[in-house]
């Protein structure tokens, strides 16, 4: 499958499970998006535990301007106060609109499980057609323990009361995927 086709399929399938997908050209735009979402939902906290030092200070500056508290470690201490969990996705899968996220760090897990909204940045070059295409990579990463890998395809949902689909019973109520343009040319990498 061509790159554009994969992206198109991912967007189509994401829509079917109420995942919102947007394109971003750089991290700055992605961070602004996360800040904006947090503010628009009346929240005041972002947990972003897995950023490098440079990105961290970039985000911290934006949060400071918007009067948002940024949590980068000991996320467990902030349970109940996290509006947005912000992560960097490892892989994307078009067929099922799945985000593959290495969640070995407890901070990442809590940020993505106990926030109201999960915003994940996904480099475009990391999108595969289907899960089978990732079999070798995933199998390899499972060989180094401990490891906690998550496939996330939409927001927490249940249909346990009269089969009515209801969102957000335990985990985040929204999932936002930000597709990061990381390919300089239009060619297949």
């Amino acid at each position: 499958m061509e790159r554009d086709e994969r992206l198109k399929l991912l967007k189509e399938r994401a829509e079917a499970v109420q995942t919102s997908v947007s394109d971003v050209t750089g991290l700055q735009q992605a961070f602004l998006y996360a800040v904006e979402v947090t503010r628009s939902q009346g929240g005041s906290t972002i947990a972003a535990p897995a950023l490098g030092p440079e990105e961290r200070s970039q985000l911290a500056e934006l949060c400071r301007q918007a009067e948002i508290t940024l949590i980068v470690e000991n996320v467990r201490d902030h349970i109940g106060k996290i509006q947005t969990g912000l992560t960097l996705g490892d892989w994307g899968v078009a067929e099922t609109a799945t985000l593959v996220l290495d969640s070995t760090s407890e901070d990442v897990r809590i940020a993505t499980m106990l926030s109201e909204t999960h915003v994940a940045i996904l480099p475009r070059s990391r999108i595969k057609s289907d899960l089978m295409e990732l079999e070798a990579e995933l199998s390899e990463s499972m060989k180094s323990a401990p490891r906690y890998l998550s496939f996330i395809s939409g927001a927490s949902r249940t249909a346990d009361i009269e089969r009515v689909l209801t969102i957000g019973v335990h985990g985040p109520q929204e999932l936002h995927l930000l597709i990061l343009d990381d390919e300089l040319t239009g060619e297949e990498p």
Partner: protein
Amino acid sequence: LKRALGNQFLGATLDTFASSYKVSRAKAFEGIHLDSLIAEIAAGKDASIPHLEELFSAFKDRAEAAGIRVHVARTALEANTIIADIARANQVKKIVKGKSMTAEETFLNHHLEEEGFVVTETDLGEWIIQLRHEGPSHMVMPAIHLSRKEVAELFTKVTGRQQDPDDINGMIKVARKELRQAFLEADMGITGANFAIADTGTIGIVTNEGNGRLVTTLPRVHVALIGFDKLVPDLKSALRILKALPRSATGQLISTYVTWINGPTECTSAPGGRKEMHIVFLDNGRLALARDPLFSQALRCIRCGACANVCPIYKLVGGHNYGHVYIGAIGLILTYFYHGRENARAIVKACLNCQACKAVCPTGIDLPYLIKGVSRTILEAEGKPPVKNRLLKHVLGNRKLFHFLLRGAYLAQKPVAGGGYLRHLPFFFSSAHGFRSLPAVARTPLRDMWERINPRLDKPRYRVALFGGCLVDFVYPEQAQALIQLLGKHNVQLEYPMEQTCCGLPAMMMGENETAREVAVQNLKSMDPASYDFVLTLCASCGSHLKENYPKLCGEDEGIGLKVMQLRDKLIDFSSFMMNVLQVKPEMFEGSGKKVAYHAPCHLCRSLGVTREPRELIQTAGLTYLPAKDEDVCCGFGGSFSVDFPEISAELLKRKLDHAEATGADLLVTDCPGCVLQLRGGMDQRSGRKVEVRHIVETVGGEKP
């Protein structure tokens, strides 16, 4: 059972669910070659099942190297004891649980609560039924039997605040809040797992709510209880199953969360900052089952619940009546192996053999056949077959006696027969059987008039043996007469091998395989497939039995085995013969334009896989085909099923006739005399406008070309 049939909410919910499930499942599998996927999953499972212990030992090495403690529990009690011991050793007080059928199997909650631990189910449906002190009524949707009103009443009691039944979102928020507290206070989390991957020591958990992630993250101890059957060699096998599991369970392409865990991860609430992780592998009969040549197939099950979703009986009575812990078709089987004969005896009889479960199973388990197998095993173990089994064995095993009795039945019924029906049921049927009229046995059976009514043709195009079956031979010979007339016009010579007898399906349905085998051999001796171009039957049930079950009964026998295979290759149903062999065209029919609804017999549309031909034939013959709702759902006949379970049979029949009537058709047409018996008998008992029920051969043949 009667109470369940009277529960209108349950009936309506399960009916709506069954209809919407069909649509969403089909949509989810779009673009996937389902037959190949099923075959691949089945082959993968079948390759693993004989090696579960080796897979376990590979898994254990990997998992222990990663720091997981691995345990083996031979029985349910042992599993519960091991888990309680782990809890005690870690000074655990409060436990949160993810949804696990395996834990339901061992009644783990009950055990832990007796030991003084506080256990909270965190899957919403499981939490609801835990609060109500009930078991699940569905493997995927445990609380599907409850209405929003019942949940609101329950939540009002739990929270002490009035809950609005129409605000489902609000009730979900109640659960979110209550359960969030339980997560934060818990010392230990218990989950099941959908996969245990041997070559990496990884467990995989499939959930939608995300509670599984919290259960494995927040508490300092994690215990996973996993059946040996969940072992797969590698990630590839797991991903292949994952492709089918959510699609088949809920019609989702994938469930919201799939979690893969290798080893104890970071946990800041644990001493040393590292979680304590245990895996308990449950045997409870699985390893013995794995060695059984027939029943090991049941271990392919991936717990998607599809076999319940499509089961016409489940749809009527719900999971609390249709299973013990495990529910649906697979539940009837697993109950015997995991929970014993006492719990299995009654429910295992409640199978129509309609094949709907087999057709939908993503791992290709021959569920109806295994259900009959369990039934047989129970009969053998108890060594006291019911009177009707002994009678059947004696009578069916001897064609002359059997046919003598059937002829005698014509005379015996005389005082109660009228207009082709028995007007008063013999005393041994209770009033519950009055939902349909039973047909009278024909005055002259087909075999006695055959030579007279079947003309010899000069140079026939095809020589075709007719396999009559009991109903066509002794009750509805007019169906064969219509066939002779019709095929004569196409220069097809029919033959009726006189030594043929009952196909033997009723014997197999009662678990009497030895009798079924004897009858099969008798039929094969009477009718050498090599002497004919085709073997045609008007009875879908006989046809599917000849084609599918004869190979199982005597396909391996020397000599006869070859004939079984020849018979399988030459067997054909009426519609396929007309459309595919004779290739009839509209101009060959006058075409009355009558409005026709169609009922697809279970054994034709699923067992024999014939779906296109009957509908095409109806239209080719110049009739107007009006599609009805649930055309391929069983009419409730199921042979002796309708005698053993009249209430269920009556309800299925009622729905079927309602759907047919709703089309506005003049005729209801089907291609199995068993279905004709059921449908015509039911129509006779209805008041108001009556839709005439006919075998398709009488409809197509009735129009003079």
